[in-house]
């Protein structure tokens, strides 16, 4: 019996409708004042952590490399976006879009700049060199006093990171990385993780794809950085220290390397957790470490493994079941339970 499949246009229609519904509902709720200031802030924060985790997952989960400088790209994007927004050279809506794109592009350029030499290295070496890069960025930003105001902080950044802006970015990042991974380019990236020598023997330009994955990852990290800047309205280089990179990595590992859905869920959980655990604030780091240890012991592939959520697949299963039940009832009963 042929399994039931939802035609592609219908699937796209359903997904788009649901996403728009989500955006409208979310926007209404955050605007309505139903939630407190703190809750709204958390929801926005979940948004850019999702982008950070999903973009890091591209390099860590799909490409199979371990960079430790994701906060560096975030910082570059944050300052690029913030400085552009502060200049007020465009009308607001256009300014938001251009500022975000600029943040992404500048971060992607840094990604290529770092990626070309760094990706010749593997494993620990790549981790160390990207870690160093992240720190260098932070130090440079601190010392570029005339532009960034260093440790005193860049103030008066327009607060552009509304629910709508942040979650449109979330949806675009997830969609782009998803469609990328379901293409020949995505398969090339996966093949490098699986076996680099075999990938080359199949004619996959491994260096090109490594740099590309790195650049795309940096692009979205840069956008997340700009959203971060537009949320707080103030930036200090210390926002982008090594621990930020580690936090993002922890989200990806907890969610499951190579699972976008896992990254999304873990980003939400790990951002909400400190909020919920406020009374236990002193033990926060202990709780995090315990969580990581427990997950690594009982589910080393992360909460979601490499599972990826697909609404249409679930729908197809449900409808397929219903149809086959109907058929069994309508026709002769084959004695199947």
């Amino acid at each position, binding site marked *: 019996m042929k399994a039931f499949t939802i035609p592609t246009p219908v699937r796209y229609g359903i997904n788009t409708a649901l996403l728009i519904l989500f955006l409208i509902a979310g926007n209404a709720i955050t605007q309505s004042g139903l939630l407190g200031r703190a809750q709204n802030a958390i929801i926005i924060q979940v948004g850019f952590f999702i982008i950070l985790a999903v973009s890091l997952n591209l390099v860590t989960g799909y490409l199979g490399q371990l960079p430790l400088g994701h906060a560096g790209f975030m910082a570059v994007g944050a300052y690029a976006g913030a400085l552009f927004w502060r200049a007020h050279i465009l009308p607001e809506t256009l300014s938001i879009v251009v500022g975000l794109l600029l943040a992404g592009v500048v971060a992607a350029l840094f990604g290529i700049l770092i990626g070309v030499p760094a990706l010749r290295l593997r494993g620990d070496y790549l981790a160390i060199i990207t870690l160093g890069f992240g720190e260098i960025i932070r130090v440079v930003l601190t010392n570029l006093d005339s532009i960034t105001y260093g440790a005193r902080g860049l103030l008066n950044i327009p607060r552009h990171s509304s629910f709508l802006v942040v979650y449109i970015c979330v949806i675009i990042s997830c969609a782009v990385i998803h469609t990328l991974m379901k293409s020949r380019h995505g398969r090339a990236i996966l093949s490098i993780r699986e076996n680099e020598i075999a990938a080359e*023997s199949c004619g996959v330009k491994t260096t090109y794809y490594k740099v590309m994955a790195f650049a795309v990852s940096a692009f979205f990290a840069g956008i997340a950085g700009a959203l971060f800047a537009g949320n707080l309205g103030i930036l200090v280089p210390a926002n982008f220290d090594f621990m930020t990179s580690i936090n993002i990595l922890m989200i990806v590992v907890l969610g499951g390397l190579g699972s976008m859905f896992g990254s999304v869920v873990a980003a939400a959980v790990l951002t909400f957790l400190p909020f919920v655990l406020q009374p236990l604030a002193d033990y926060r780091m202990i709780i995090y470490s315990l969580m990581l240890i427990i997950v690594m012991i009982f589910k080393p592939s992360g909460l979601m493994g490499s599972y990826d959520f697909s609404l249409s697949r679930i729908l197809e299963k449900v409808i397929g079941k219903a149809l086959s039940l109907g058929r069994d009832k309508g026709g002769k009963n084959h004695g199947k339970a």
Partner: protein
Amino acid sequence: MGKRDPKAPFVPHRDAYKAPIMECVNLGIDFGGLTAVNDFCITIGPTEICGLIGPNGAGKTTIFNLLTKVYQPTRGSVYLQGIDTKDMNSVKANKAGLARTFQNIRLFKNMTVAENVLVGLHNSISYGLGEAILRFPSYWREERIARSRALELLEIFDMQDIGDQKAGSLPYGAQRRLEIVRALATAPKVLLLDEPAAGMNPAETEELMENIQKINKVFKIAILLIEHDMKLVMGICEGIGVLNYGRLIAKGTPAEIQRNPLVVEAYLGKGQSDSESGGEDSA
């Protein structure tokens, strides 16, 4: 029959009037002080099936690595359709028409069977990054064509129904077959098979022999294989080269090789007669 000069080309009669597809001239590589391969010369006709045999550690796999540019040779050259491959890397060598399998299987284990073949088809699909992300019509069209091509290729080994399984979950023999399909997907002119029958039972080996011959006929490509299973090598190879300590010590038809006392000595050890069954399953 007299002994052949090991350096003389061997090309089957039907290919003799065609330009060779691949030529190696005095190929050699050193690893530190160790000369793993030296003075390796071979000429392969465009539709020839030939074999490379020799004891373990003789340098057979190293020759495949030299041909596919996993290693750059210390000496000598490889010509593909008359073009020097000196400046090529693995990717360019593949595009120039060389595809291979690996002695220690290198599948993309966490990808599905179909995806493994689709990676092989990577360069026969041409849509760009933007077309992929925005899902242009070209994306859908080329993906559909590539998927049906992948299934077609899997049909060679009757694997079209397991396209959705993880490659790593396949039994050993099936993994070896999948590697061949993946290599074929890159549309090679020369297919290099490194011990394709290793770990297969006699029935599987028998089937593999037929399939190698089928691939050779249907795709009209040259096949160079390394194998220890003498029944397979003697059964399907038209030309055989024998390697010992990194040097070709003999080259010729299966009959010539079986009669060659040098080969019998190097490959089977002294004291063996040059009997018909010479060297069966010696590995």
